[in-house]
């Protein structure tokens, strides 16, 4: 018993140094030396390429806000932008029922956690369908459902296509040119078959901004 305790204490200290700190520090060293951009969060001047943003409030003179850009998953849109629903719940210590406080509030990642037969989910989805219909968009499933993190930076090419009428109307750019833009920005599946093809919304909008001059 005493031997076991003594051995355990020595082992705990040695393993904590080696497999906790040395492992992490060596990894951080390699990462910072060879993959600096990725290791620090894939940052651009406008945000992180990997962290989704709320585009729905982008000012678009003469049109509904957010209609002159491509929008991402509705992780912070409509019903889910109302962090007030969870007021009183600090995001700290309530991870289970984490609201979709991803952007704007430091340190949250979350999902709705609403089940497939939830009345609440049904109501929210209807609200989102109405949101898109008001912008002339016939929504795809991704555009009315939230992601696995509340931070999905991507949409599928079909989602982007569905948004083209809205963007075209608000920017005056022809649908054909927007379709070319989406095609240019579409990234294939890794190895040709893993996961789904996707369009990064931040990069798509940066390219759109260039197109508009």
């Amino acid at each position, binding site marked *: 018993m005493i031997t076991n305790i003594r051995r355990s204490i020595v082992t705990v200290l040695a393993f904590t140094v080696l497999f906790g700190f040395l492992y992490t520090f060596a990894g951080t060293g390699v990462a910072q030396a060879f993959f600096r951009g990725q290791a620090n969060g894939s940052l651009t001047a406008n945000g992180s390429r990997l962290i989704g*943003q709320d585009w729905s409030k982008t000012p678009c003179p003469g049109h509904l806000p957010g209609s002159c850009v491509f929008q991402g998953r509705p992780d912070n849109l409509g019903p889910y932008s109302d962090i007030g629903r969870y007021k009183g719940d600090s995001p700290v210590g309530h991870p289970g029922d984490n609201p979709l406080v991803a952007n704007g509030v430091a340190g949250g990642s979350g999902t709705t956690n609403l*089940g497939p037969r939830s009345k609440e989910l049904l109501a929210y989805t209807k609200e989102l369908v109405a949101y898109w219909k008001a912008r002339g968009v016939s929504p795809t499933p991704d555009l009315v459902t939230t992601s696995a993190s509340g931070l999905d930076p991507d949409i599928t090419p079909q989602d982007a296509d569905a948004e083209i009428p809205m963007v075209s109307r608000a920017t005056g750019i022809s649908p054909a040119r927007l379709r070319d833009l989406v095609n240019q920005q579409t990234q294939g599946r890794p*190895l040709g078959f893993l996961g789904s093809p996707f369009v990064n919304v931040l990069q798509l909008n940066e390219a759109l901004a260039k197109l508009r001059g």
Partner: protein
Amino acid sequence: MGFFWTIVLLIVTLGLAWRFLGSYMAAVFDGRVTFLGWLERPFYRLLGTSPDREQSWQRYAASTVVFSGVFLLMGYVLMRIQGSLPLNPQHFGGVTQSLDFNTIASFVTNTNWQNYGGETTMSYFSQIGVLTVQQFVSAAVGIAVAIAVTRGFSRRKSPTIGNFWVDITRCLLYILLPIAFVAGIIMVGQGAVQTLAGPVSIHDAMNGVSQTIPRGPAGFMGPIMQLGTNGGGFFNVDLGHPFENPTALTNFVYMWLTLSIPFALTYTFGKMVGSVRHGVALLVAMVLIFGTWVGFTAYAEHQNNPAVAAAGVHSTVGNTEGKNSYFGDTTSALFNVSMTQTSDGAVDSSTDSYNPIGGFGPLSGMMLGEVSPGGVGSGLYTILLYAVIAVFIGGLMIGRTPEYLGKKIQAREVKLAGLAALVMPITVLVLTAVAVSLHAGRAGPLNAGPHGFSEILYAFTSQGNNNGSAMAGLSGNTTFYNVLGGIDMLIGRFGILIPALALGGALAAKNVVPASLGTFRTDNGMFIGLTIGVIVIIGGLTFFPAVSLGPIVEQLSHGKFF
């Protein structure tokens, strides 16, 4: 078609791991791999032990328990005082008592259930010095125990089953550390964050959004969390977070890391007992169960979400609620089954938002005791317990004392296997019943109706099986759920681990009976079928009533919303 090729690639790469990692692990634990001997030897001297000084099963078990206990205490203290420790750029205070207990029990038992939000609760010090360390160490403990039980089958008239300290050290140095480090480089290259700098604030001039983006050393934590079938991520949403799982390629590598050791251990087992055929028999049983569950779960998730359908949106891409667009529906389902049939429990999509039968897949996978292929080490020793029950039943049918690998399976062995097989279901069902009968328990679920019950049942099933996957709508961070969950995890780990070691010890002491014509074969299709039957019948009969109140009712209530 993409999904088909994903499966093909998974089979090919896991096949290679099975053959080569499997034989490498056998060599490591036989002491034939020595390139880090210069590091090993002084460490054993410091501990006052050596590879030749072996332990009886009682001493092996005592070392396991004391070692885990010391780690538990130290981790508890470090997380309580993290506010006064360095590497805390976000200035988090100490973790509260009950949450701390739940978290450390969770990591020491290889569960990694998260009642905390990584980026909102844990300092970098806690993530590195407590959680990452445990992801290495609890995995090594599981593998060491599986190897010790294997020695029970391979040795004759032996009073000992190995040296715990040597087994965990070798496992860590030769197996876990090198693979995790190489995988970490792949993850960061693909976009995972790996920095000790704090969050970054950025203003986007295009849309007027100001963001505060949490970062941290997630890129190297992910690989060991997966390789050791731990599953507790750096961030709250685990591998759904683009900073930890940035592409479909990293998603695939994470799946491979999780499944590689548990499957490969069947080869290691076969090699060590001198009959690879026996390892293959266990592998086939695992693969058949695994494949069935992947099939129906992926099919269920390829259907539209009922709420989305009722809102008038048609889907050709399945249930997208709670899934990242760059993974897609079937890949997310495959990932989820991979994590719940092992003891990993990581998620890249929201299990709570799965269709009813889609959610039944992960839940029932855990209920089968996580043997297909199960957690690192725990999968092998648990399926061996079921194999013992299977030969016992086979023996009853033909009226002969059954043998497995020439070892007579007698009353003591069957009692130990029976005990281990009953511990998990009893714990899970009793705690679920307690939770649904008390106000504190009923306050937990986010969803109404049968789905709310599923959330509670899922929580105790996951913790009792040391999985860590969650239907995360449950508000688990209450004193009630923290304490009950912590107890659930400790019983689920040691209540099976200790009988397994006792079984190994009892078998090691026996001599081998030569096989004769009347011997019940334990390496053919009949035995595989019998083992699968035992696993499915024990799991099915025990949990069917509970499951029918959750996902099955939910599936049958067409057109109704709660």
